[in-house]
């Protein structure tokens, strides 16, 4: 348990660092994203880390979708607009998302062929 607490504190520390840096430099990105970049740098340098960092991260990531529930409930604040323009907004979101998914995956696969970075092992769905 102590090891998990250490790992969690470590993550909060990087979030704090990211938040402070973003405020200091005044760039329009969220603190946690800056914290993520700092932690990538730290881990990339093979700097020391808490023993259970990997397990703690896996725990948080496994139920990442839980963490979006409070924000998702926020849609109730826009019910009047959704009634008014709902059909338009929904159509725009659905169609543009489907197109963007297809264009994204297609561009990726085409560029993989062109650059020769073909999928290996685990990268390919069996």
């Amino acid at each position, binding site marked *: 348990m102590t090891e998990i607490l250490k790992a969690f504190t470590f993550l909060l520390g990087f979030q704090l660092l990211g938040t402070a840096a973003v405020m200091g430099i005044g760039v329009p990105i969220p603190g946690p994203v800056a914290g993520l970049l700092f932690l990538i740098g730290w881990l990339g340098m093979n700097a020391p880390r808490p023993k259970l960092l990997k397990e703690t991260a896996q725990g*948080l990531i496994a139920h990442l979708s839980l963490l979006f529930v409070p924000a998702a409930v926020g849609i109730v604040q826009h019910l009047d607009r959704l009634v008014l323009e709902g059909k338009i907004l929904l159509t725009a979101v659905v169609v543009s998302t489907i197109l963007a998914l297809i264009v994204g995956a297609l561009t990726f696969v085409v560029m993989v062929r062109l650059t020769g970075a073909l999928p290996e092992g685990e990268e390919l769905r069996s």
Partner: protein
Amino acid sequence: MNPINEVQDIWAYLQTTPLLWLMLTMMAYLVGFWCFEKVKRSPIVSPVAIAASFLGVIILITDTPYPVYFEGAQFVHFLLGPATVSLAIPLVANFPRVRRAAIPMLAALIASSATAIFAAIFIAQVMGASDEAIRSLIPKSVTTPIAMGISEQIGGLPSLTAGLVVLTGILGAIIVTPLMNHLGFRDWRARGFAVGVTSHGIGTARAFQVHEVAGVFAAVAMALNGLVTAFVVALFSQLL
């Protein structure tokens, strides 16, 4: 005191405590996750969508203002911060894999992000949406905090954008697996990256549930899309 009044008093008290809404948020998600497991993790069932609709109905019926609900839910919401930071661990573990696909990622980022933005503007305009609705729609594929900032900069309604971001995330997370299977995309990197660009964190959460490689590429896509869109918009608004 009669028992009915007493029940009402207890409810009136509980309704204002963070405890009740925190508990209901966890419970709603567990119900959603249980349904997801029941259908053998079929992508059509989204734990987030189930939990959010369940909670939305409860707060509408009980006439609870969203800020009161959020008082309790914020404890769950707060964990998004450390969870975002923790994405560094799988990213670093898969770093050679990510670096090798740098060019396909960059190309897919530009193509997919531009498609998401321009297709949405085009459809909304053709169907006659209001100007502020269109502006609010533009950053819908970007992670919430960045999207709200962009929306404000370009004259949208940040809170409407937040709602559209969530909607886009949930839709993308539901659609991606059947769509990719149908079109025959077998490269986990391409599948993950596409859902990360279009559906930010919710898409990334979904990708990690499906396959770690897909999850890693979704996380990279989400971060890149947030960073690049924020900088492009900042640049444009300075030029204009």
